[in-house]
């Protein structure tokens, strides 16, 4: 304390008095100028630190000391406990502390007795803190403020400031449910603790930068290093190490869970026993109760995820088909509409059952299964490209799909074309095209499913299918909702043709995916598609709509297809053999692009050992979400610059051809498929940050900045 401080107090005794210590300024502020007897007002000790200096939280951490406030209050006024705003974790890592830089307002509720008499009163507090920069200095100041007592409460000019700090005080979490359990028995005095938080209500907040700030204890210490095992849209899972000084291991834990910069207080959360098998990811899933709880949650996620799939870019073209279907069905008998809605749903569900069966089969064969893994198979891509080309040609009216084999050419008859078979086909197509996309909600549900038993996989997959089909089932059930759609008419033919173009776009996308497997030879796939298109035209024009020589036309179609297949696909494209993909050197996309290097666990370890920040993008050509992320949030100038400035090692893990170790890595982060973007901090033992599925430039830049600290 400066010697002149007491004189300063005398001079300014009755006003709110700023008192100055070496590097921190303390001031007492109140939420009200006038209070009534019986009121509780908020007092704040405002500490302003000079740049570089900090004071401490209630648990100072490895060193330091918590600020103390000793009140001198008139009789009838009582002070509550200090409410501490969320502190920052302050480096260096070897001596990590929890504290405040620049400014903090420590809040204390003051309660005035109902029988308090008097017109005004003086409040006084002695504030003792330790301020540190390169050195630590204990400081001790007395601050005062005055408040009037009257019949009416009058807020002060500081009320808003106090309120803004009050918002930074961690509260009990309403939107998260937290659990804690020992991961294993650890050593004599060091044990890993898993803290887990699941988001209950709001979903779209990315759960970034999770951490846990413990309350101080004499008998044990929760070490400052935090390993993030999971941080996605639904759940965080942290590993902390607890060092025991004396006595038994703690049975409960208190502190603040920090998620995306907001603190959530946990108070005496019971610590569960280690899971018997010592599993890391499934440690809590081994407990039956938790499984049933999380299964329910995951089923809900699966349903919502399926619903959202409808608007993901992969499925959008199918929506065109559905719109058309609805327009033509709108005036049909409700029973028929319902029937078609159900058949569509059936198509979706059966496709999902097939997918589930494939996943179970792949898993039981000892391989790692992934969502969208069939897109890694070039054969599948070729078949799908051909199929979607045919759908586009069909929409253009080149040929028709009918059971009778004869064309129907009036708009009024269009409805029957979208009969049962059409509806079923739409369902299958929607599902097939949906698989390369994961959506919010879907990722955690599938990540969960892929690690579970066969019955759970089937259940989750069917639920996703139900979600995907649900809007159409609902609409079919209430055809009245369709009345805003225009009347069927000649326009439908034009609309149908227009809808062929999104399908063509899908063809181009699939073609580009195929290019990554076949290289320049993909040309022959294009030629095959042209032959197929020609065959489709002959089929439609001369077989379906023709009057004469229909037999000749049909034979010609067969010859064209057979020749196209034998020559283009088999001979030239050699479509069942895939060229090995070059896997070394820079994968740079353009001259000023990010200098991507191929990913491998060794490459990560090597870069981290060199003290570098590592960005890993798990991606695939067929993954539209990945491509969108790349265009909007990764291969952009601000991120490129940041990567250059921070000397970040960028590694690209291309899942297009599903290498096993990528699947293993994805599973480790509870993901069933790409996208997955990881940022490994500079500090070599810090865990990677898992970025959300859908990125913004802000998320990426922020993660890189944090990694540099």
């Amino acid at each position: 304390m400066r010697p002149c401080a007491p004189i300063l107090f005398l001079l300014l005794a009755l006003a709110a008095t700023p008192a100055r210590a070496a590097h921190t300024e303390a001031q007492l502020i109140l939420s009200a100028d006038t209070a009534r007897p019986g009121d509780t007002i908020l007092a704040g000790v405002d500490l302003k630190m000079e740049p570089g200096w900090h004071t401490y939280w209630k648990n100072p951490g490895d060193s330091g000391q918590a600020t103390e406030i000793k009140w001198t209050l008139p009789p009838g006024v009582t002070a509550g406990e200090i409410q501490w705003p969320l502190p920052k974790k302050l480096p260096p890592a070897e001596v990590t502390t929890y504290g405040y830089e620049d400014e903090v307002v420590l809040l204390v509720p003051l309660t005035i007795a109902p029988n308090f008499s008097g017109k005004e009163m003086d409040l006084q507090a002695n504030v003792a803190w330790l301020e540190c920069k390169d050195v630590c200095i204990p400081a001790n100041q007395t601050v005062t403020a005055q408040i009037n007592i009257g019949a009416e409460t009058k807020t002060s000019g500081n009320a808003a400031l106090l309120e803004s700090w009050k918002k930074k005080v961690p509260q009990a979490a309403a939107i998260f449910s937290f659990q804690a359990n020992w991961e294993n028995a650890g050593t004599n005095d060091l044990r890993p603790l898993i803290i887990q938080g699941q988001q209950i209500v709001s979903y779209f907040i990315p759960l970034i930068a999770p951490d846990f700030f413990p309350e101080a204890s004499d008998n044990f210490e929760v070490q400052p290093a935090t390993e993030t095992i999971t941080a996605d849209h639904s759940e965080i899972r942290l590993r902390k190490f607890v060092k025991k000084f004396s006595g038994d291991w703690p049975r409960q834990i208190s502190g603040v869970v920090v998620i995306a910069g907001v603190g959530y207080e946990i108070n005496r959360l019971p610590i569960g026993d280690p899971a018997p098998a010592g599993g890391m990811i499934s440690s809590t899933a081994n407990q039956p109760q938790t499984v049933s709880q999380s299964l329910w949650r995951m089923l809900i996620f699966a349903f919502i995820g399926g619903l959202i799939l409808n608007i993901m870019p992969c499925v959008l073209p199918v929506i065109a088909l559905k719109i058309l279907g609805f327009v033509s069905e709108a005036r049909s008998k409700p029973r028929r509409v319902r029937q078609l809605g159900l058949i569509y749903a059936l198509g979706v569900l059966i496709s999902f059952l097939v997918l589930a069966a494939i996943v179970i089969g792949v898993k039981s064969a000892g391989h790692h299964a992934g969502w969208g893994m069939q897109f890694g198979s070039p054969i599948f891509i070729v078949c799908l490209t051909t199929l979607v080309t045919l759908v586009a040609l069909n929409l253009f009216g080149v040929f028709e799909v009918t059971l009778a084999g004869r064309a129907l050419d009036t708009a009024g008859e269009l409805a029957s074309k979208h009969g049962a078979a059409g509806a079923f086909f739409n369902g299958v197509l929607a599902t097939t095209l949906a698989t390369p996309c994961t959506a919010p909600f879907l990722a955690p549900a599938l990540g969960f499913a892929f690690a579970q038993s066969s019955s759970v996989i089937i259940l989750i997959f069917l639920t996703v299918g139900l979600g995907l089909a649900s809007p159409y089932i609902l609409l079919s059930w209430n055809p009245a909702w369709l009345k805003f759609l225009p009347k069927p008419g000649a326009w439908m033919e034009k609309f149908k043709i227009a809808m062929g173009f999104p399908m063509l776009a899908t063809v181009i996308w699939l073609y580009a995916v195929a290019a990554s497997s076949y290289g320049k030879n993909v040309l022959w796939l294009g030629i095959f598609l042209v032959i197929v298109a020609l065959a489709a035209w002959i089929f439609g024009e001369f077989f379906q709509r023709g009057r004469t020589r229909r037999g000749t036309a049909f034979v010609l179609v067969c010859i064209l297809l057979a020749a196209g297949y034998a020559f283009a696909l088999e001979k030239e494209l050699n479509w069942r053999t895939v060229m090995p993909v070059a896997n070394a050197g820079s994968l740079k996309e353009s001259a000023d692009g990010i200098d991507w290097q191929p990913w491998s666990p060794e490459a990560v370890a090597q870069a981290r050992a060199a003290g570098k920040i590592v960005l890993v993008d798990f991606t695939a050509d067929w993954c539209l979400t990945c491509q969108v992320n790349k265009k909007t949030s990764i291969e952009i100038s601000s991120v490129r610059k940041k990567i250059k400035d921070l000397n970040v090692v960028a590694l690209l893990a291309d899942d297009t051809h599903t290498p096993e170790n990528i699947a293993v890595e994805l599973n480790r982060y509870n993901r069933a498929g790409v996208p997955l973007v990881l940022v490994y901090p500079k500090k070599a033992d810090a865990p990677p940050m898992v970025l959300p599925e859908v990125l913004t430039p802000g998320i990426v830049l922020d993660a890189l900045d944090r990694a540099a600290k």
Partner: protein
Amino acid sequence: MKKNLVLIAAMMVATAAFAVEIGQPAPDFTGTDINGKTIKLSDYKGKIVVIESYNSDCPFCHNHYASGAMQDLQKNLAAKDVVWLLVDSVNTKNFSYRTPAQAQKEWADLKIAATAWIDDHSGDIGHLYGMKTTPHCFVIAADGTLVYDGAIDNRPSPFGDPRTAKNYVRAAVDELLAGKPVTVTQTKPYGCGVHYAN
């Protein structure tokens, strides 16, 4: 699963790498004291050794010395043939770094009664023992095993008389001398963070 276990094992090692363990041999070290003398921990085998992480600019340390309590304890234990080593891990760029000459003056001014003041500005010894704060203290039994790791006492304050506190170092040494097992073996060290070199 196997991979996970390996990961966990690696983390445990990482976390424990810099820390010493109670009941285990205290790791040996060699340092240079402020008079240029080489100090080797293993040379003191057969004697009880107290190690104190030292920085008198830290108000917590400062209070122990300004009140004379620390020197009293040092004298008291020296009479019982206990070795007391100050380890100063402050980096050379920090305000609190002392050149040998400054340290010799401080030793005289404060009437420090320890065995030696080791200049550990590289932080090697501090890191080896996982010294978090000043004053973080360690007690090593005559057979070389570590018996205490933690705070000097139960009074984390930069003010007042430390003699009123329960001194864990004194208690551990007294128990060792009486041939009893040490009761309190670990506590949370308090004080200022050690100003290690980056």
